[in-house]
């Protein structure tokens, strides 16, 4: 009995060691695989984009269809209460292809958010593209030019976190020039919204508050919620293209 147990223990410890070795090697490999995967996804989504461009968005038509958007996204400082209290994301100045991708994700359930799902479902593909075209250029004249580097340097802790995820690799220079149009600009987005969004990628099996974009789901896995909060705070504090623009009071 004793010997058996001992043998078991040895076997276990050696296998444990091997597992460790395997993990460190596989981590390196998986990092490589992961970057290839990201590049591939970017490539595919840009391909999707080319397809989607068969539908041309018209900003003027988009302006006529955005009554429901303004109700939340056009009120400065408005907070939403679902799934937790956060400021409604800024969408004026966001990348058009990303708006299309996000609305489609809400429509088909990749992103779960009951109200946005309801709205996306009542939009046709043409509506979605029109709205995206409108919001890309919305407030474009008032945007300050962004420098090459973020206007605020992250502290060492946040810098390490950002490096670990390689956020800049996709969201681009300044976190405001994504490498694929279907990725969002995130610099200057409301920090509490960014946190809610990141948390949603971490959420599984919630029928009403989860996101399942595979790249982001993979990304957020390595962070704790408090780390995600740190990242959100930093990125939210940056200068970016995103703004909330109130509806004019005059017609």
């Amino acid at each position: 009995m004793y010997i058996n147990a001992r043998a078991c223990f040895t076997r276990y410890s050696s296998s444990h060691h091997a597992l460790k070795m395997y993990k460190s090697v596989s981590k390196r490999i998986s990092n490589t695989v992961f970057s290839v995967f990201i590049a591939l996804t970017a490539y595919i989504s840009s391909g999707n984009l080319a397809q989607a461009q068969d539908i041309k968005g018209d900003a003027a038509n988009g302006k006529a269809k955005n009554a429901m958007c303004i109700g939340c996204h056009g009120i400065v400082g408005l907070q939403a209460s679902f799934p937790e209290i956060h400021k409604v994301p800024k969408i004026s100045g966001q990348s058009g292809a990303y708006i299309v991708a996000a609305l489609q994700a809400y429509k088909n359930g990749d992103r779960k958010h009951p109200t946005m799902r309801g709205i996306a479902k009542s939009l046709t593909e043409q509506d979605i593209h029109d709205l995206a075209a409108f919001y890309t250029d919305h407030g474009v004249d008032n945007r300050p030019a962004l420098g090459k580097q973020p206007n605020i340097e992250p502290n060492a802790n946040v810098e390490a976190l950002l490096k670990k995820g390689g956020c800049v690799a996709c969201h681009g220079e300044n976190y405001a020039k994504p490498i694929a149009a279907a990725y969002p600009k995130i610099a200057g987005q409301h920090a509490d919204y960014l946190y809610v969004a990141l948390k949603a990628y971490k959420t599984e099996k919630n029928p009403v508050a989860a996101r399942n974009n595979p790249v982001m789901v993979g990304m957020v896995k390595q962070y704790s919620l408090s780390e995600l909060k740190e990242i959100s705070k930093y990125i939210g504090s940056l200068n970016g293209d995103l703004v909330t623009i109130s509806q004019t009071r005059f017609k």
Partner: protein
Amino acid sequence: MATKIHPLTSDKTTPFFLKPALALSSFAATAAMAATDLPGGPAYNQLNLPIGVTKISQDQSWLHWYMLVICTVVFIAVFSVMFYSIWKHRKSKGHKAATFHDSLTVEIAWTLTPFLIVIAMAWPATKTVIAMKDTTNSDLTIKATGMQWQWGYDYIRGEGEGIGFISALDKEQRLLSNQGGPKSGMSVNDYLLKVDNPLVVPVNKKVRLITTANDVIHAWAVQSLGVRQDAIPGFVRDTWFRAEKEGDYYGQCAELCGKEHAYMPIHVKVLSQENYSKWVLAEKAKSAPAAVKAEEKAEVKPASKIEAAAS
């Protein structure tokens, strides 16, 4: 219908300070031209509650008149005594105040009378409220979800179980509203009440409606059905109606819920049982044609069994 333009609004010589008033009157005139009654919805120049098509809504109308009559009688009685007393005993006539004290009769009278009046009002009202809250033994259960700014309907139990859709204001009408509403001569009876997917229910069936919301508080209210129930995020509330007449009934969100609150109408289509079943089949065929066929077959079998047993 001929378009009638107010002769003065187009007149360039009208003083500027008169123009708004004239514009308003011409607007009222054109609005009058365009609007007629919408059965099941608002009527032209409607002031009173509509007499609805459910027992509850008829009770509500009755209660409304009953309370109004009681209030009017009390008002007239109290004020006539008051004015009579003031007038008859005014100072210039040299009246002296009475000096009686502790009249048991008066005290019992002024305690008992309001008490009886309150009971007379509360008794039938409570009966109706209790009836409104009795959602048991429903034939059909539907969940209505308020969201900014549309209604989601899910058929939860009963015939049509599994059907779910979103009901939003007609987009053309929304655009029309941005442009300042129906132009003169346009006849839009269901203005801001037309939806893409109405809620369809069978006639003479008890429909239990569960309300909830995704974001903020909304309220599901249809006057002709005598229903008004808040839809609160994170909670479920329920109410019910049994429409006794086929037709279209209209309502609106009745709890201020944000910018597009005025643009989330409710349209309930009450069909005969036969037409309702047809609608259910068509609706199910839309989402899962194969499943419906299987169900149809399954439905046929027990029926033939019963026939076999009967013969």
